C-alpha cells in the first residue's frame, strides 16, 4: 500500500462524509429528501447529472474498449453530449421539469404514474427499477471496491463494507441534498483527474496531430483476429456491417448513447431545479463535463496502443491482458506516481457518485412509489419509510456485489454487463412511453401500459436469450435451449436489446393509443405546462 494513496483516500472519504452530513442538516421535508427542495444550483445539478451518468465503467471499461475498437468509439461521446446532455436537458429536461412540477411528481415512476393516471405503471416501473438496479449498482460497487482494495490495502469484503457504509450513510441521511453535494465534489475531482490524464497522453506523443498520426501508422499491427471481424485500424471506423461495426454502433454507441435518456436516476435531476433557466445554464457544464469524461477516456484508451507498442512491442489489449486492465496499466507505466493517487480517487469518485444516486432511486422506488403511493401505506414519517426501503436496497446490492464475481465467470466484464443490462431494460421499458408522454397528448393509459410491457418483455427476451454479452454469462439460454445464445452465428447476438425493444414499445404504445379512449381533457390540462 502506498502511503500517499492511503492518506489521499482517507482525506477524500472524510470530505465526502462531511458533505453528506451537510445534506442531512439541510433536509427537513420529503421534498428536500427526494428532490433537494427543487432549488438546486444549475452547476451542482449538471455536475451531479454527469458524475451519476459516468461510473468507473465509462472510464475504465469503455476506455479499455477504446483500446480495442479505436477512436471510432468517439461516436458514443458525440451521442453522450448531443443526446445525453443537449437533447436531454433542452428537449426532455424542460418538459419533464414543467410536467413533473404540475403533476407534483417526486420520482420517475411517480411521473409516469401521474402522467398516465395509472397506479399500475407507477408501481410496475418502481418494481422494475428495484429489481434490476441492484445488478447495475452491484457492478458499479465492484468497480469502487477494486480500487479501495488497492488504495487502502483492504480485503475485498472489508472494502465492500467500507464503501457501503460511507455511501449508504450519506445517502440515507443526507437524501438528495447529500447525493448532490457529494456528487459535485466527486465530479470536480473527476474533471481534474481526466484533464491531467489527457494532457500527459497527448504531450507524451508530441501533440494532438502527431499522436493521431502515430496511431494511424499502427494500422498494420491490428491482429488478424480483429481484422477478420472488420477492424481497419484504431483511427478508422470498422468495415461497414462487419461484426465489429455492429457491436460498436448498436451496443456501444446506440445502446449506451440512447439508453441514457430513460435512466430514472438521471431524469429525476430535471425535477430538482426551479426553472428552465437552470437547465439552460446546466447544459454548458454538462456538455463540457461529459466531453472531459468519455472523450478523454476514449482518446487515451486508443492512444495507449502507441505507448504499449513502443514499450513492450505489443498492442494495448495484448500487453494488459484484458480491456479492463488497459487504462490502469497505462497509468501505472506511463504517468508519474503521484498521478496514481489522483486517478484512484477519480475512479472512486466515479463509482461513489453513481452508487449514491442508485441507492436513492431504489429507496424512493420502494418507499415512495410502491409502499406509499401504490399500496396506500401512508406514513406520518415518509422519509423514514424511504430510508428503510433504501437500507433494503443497499443490502440487496451489497449481496449482489458479493456474489457477482462468482456468478459471472469473467470478472473483467461484470461492470460493463451490469451497466448494459440496466440501460437496456430501462430504455426498452420506459423510453418510448416517457417520450410520447412528454410530447403527445394522444397517448392513452392502455397505450402507455402496453408500450411499457412490450418493451420490457422484448428487452428481457433479447437480454437473456439473444444478446451474447449477457445471455452467455447468464447461462439461461444454454440451460433451456442447449446453445449459449439464439443469435449465434448471426449479427443478432451483437445487437443491443434497445434496438429491438424501443421500436416495439413505440409501435405498441402508438397503435393501442389510436384504438383506446383518450385521457380526459382535464387530466391533460393538468399535465401539460402550456
Amino acid at each position, binding site marked *: 500500500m502506498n502511503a500517499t494513496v492511503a492518506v489521499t483516500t482517507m482525506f477524500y472519504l472524510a470530505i465526502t462524509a462531511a458533505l453528506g452530513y451537510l445534506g442531512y442538516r439541510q433536509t*427537513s421535508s420529503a421534498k428536500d429528501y427526494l428532490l433537494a427542495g427543487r432549488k438546486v444550483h444549475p452547476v451542482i445539478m449538471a455536475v451531479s447529472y454527469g458524475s451519476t451518468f459516468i461510473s468507473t465503467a465509462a472510464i475504465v471499461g469503455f476506455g479499455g474498449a477504446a483500446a480495442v475498437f479505436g*477512436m471510432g468509439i468517439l461516436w458514443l461521446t458525440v451521442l453522450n453530449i*448531443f443526446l445525453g446532455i443537449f437533447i436531454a436537458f433542452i428537449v426532455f429536461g424542460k418538459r419533464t421539469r414543467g410536467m413533473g412540477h404540475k403533476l407534483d411528481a417526486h420520482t420517475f415512476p411517480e411521473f409516469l404514474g401521474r402522467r398516465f393516471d395509472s397506479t399500475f405503471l407507477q408501481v410496475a416501473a418502481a418494481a422494475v427499477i428495484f429489481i434490476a438496479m441492484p445488478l447495475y449498482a452491484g457492478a458499479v460497487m465492484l468497480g469502487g471496491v477494486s480500487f479501495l482494495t488497492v488504495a487502502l490495502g483492504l480485503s475485498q469484503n472489508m472494502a465492500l463494507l467500507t464503501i457501503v457504509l460511507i455511501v449508504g450513510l450519506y445517502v440515507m441521511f443526507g437524501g438528495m441534498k447529500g447525493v448532490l453535494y457529494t456528487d459535485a465534489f466527486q465530479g470536480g475531482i473527476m474533471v481534474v483527474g481526466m484533464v491531467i490524464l489527457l494532457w500527459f497522453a497527448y504531450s507524451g506523443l508530441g501533440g494532438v496531430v502527431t499522436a*493521431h498520426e502515430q496511431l494511424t501508422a499502427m494500422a498494420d499491427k491490428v491482429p488478424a483476429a480483429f481484422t477478420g471481424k472488420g477492424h481497419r485500424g484504431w483511427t478508422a471506423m470498422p468495415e461497414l456491417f462487419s461484426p465489429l461495426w455492429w457491436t460498436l454502433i448498436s451496443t456501444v454507441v446506440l445502446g449506451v448513447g440512447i439508453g441514457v435518456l430513460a435512466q430514472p436516476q438521471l431524469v429525476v435531476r430535471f425535477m430538482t431545479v426551479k*426553472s428552465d433557466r437552470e437547465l439552460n445554464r446546466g447544459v454548458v457544464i454538462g*456538455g463540457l463535463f461529459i466531453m472531459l469524461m468519455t472523450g478523454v477516456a476514449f482518446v487515451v484508451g486508443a492512444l495507449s496502443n502507441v505507448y504499449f507498442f513502443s514499450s513492450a512491442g505489443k498492442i494495448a489489449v495484448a500487453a494488459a491482458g484484458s480491456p479492463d486492465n488497459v487504462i490502469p496499466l497505462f497509468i501505472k507505466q506511463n504517468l508519474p506516481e503521484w498521478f496514481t493517487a489522483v486517478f484512484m480517487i477519480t475512479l472512486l469518485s466515479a463509482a461513489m457518485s453513481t452508487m449514491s444516486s442508485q441507492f436513492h432511486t431504489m429507496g424512493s422506488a420502494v418507499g415512495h412509489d410502491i409502499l406509499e403511493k401504490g399500496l396506500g401505506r401512508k406514513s406520518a414519517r*415518509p422519509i423514514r419509510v424511504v430510508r428503510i426501503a433504501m437500507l433494503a436496497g443497499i443490502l440487496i446490492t451489497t449481496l449482489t456485489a458479493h456474489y457477482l464475481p462468482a456468478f459471472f465467470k469473467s470478472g473483467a466484464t461484470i461492470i460493463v454487463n451490469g451497466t448494459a443490462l440496466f440501460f437496456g431494460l430501462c430504455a426498452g421499458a420506459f423510453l418510448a412511453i416517457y417520450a410520447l408522454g412528454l410530447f403527445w397528448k394522444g397517448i392513452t393509459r392502455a397505450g402507455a401500459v402496453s408500450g411499457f410491457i412490450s418493451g420490457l418483455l422484448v428487452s428481457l427476451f433479447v437480454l437473456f436469450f439473444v444478446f451474447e454479452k449477457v445471455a452467455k454469462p447468464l447461462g439461461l439460454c444454454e440451460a433451456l435451449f442447449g446453445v449459449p445464445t439464439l443469435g449465434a452465428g448471426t449479427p443478432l447476438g451483437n445487437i443491443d436489446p434497445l434496438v429491438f425493444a424501443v421500436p416495439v414499445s413505440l409501435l405498441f404504445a402508438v397503435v393501442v393509443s389510436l384504438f383506446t379512449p383518450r385521457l380526459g381533457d382535464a387530466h391533460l390540462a393538468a399535465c401539460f405546462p402550456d
Partner: protein
Amino acid sequence: MLGLGDWGVGLAFVLTLGSAALCAVYGFLNWNKPAPAEEAREIAEEEAWEKTEMAHTEGERQ
C-alpha cells in the same frame, strides 16, 4: 484530417468538440432565459406547490 485514418473517425472527433461547443453556446445565449414574466409565473407556481408540499410533510423533521 487531424492525423486520423478516415473521415468517420475524423467527423466523430470534430463532432465531439462541436457538440460540447453547441452546449456551451446555447447555454451562454440562454443564460438568463426564460424571460422575467415567465419566471414570475413559474415562481408563483412553485410557491403554490410548496404550500401543498409543506402541508403534507408538516411536523416532520428527520
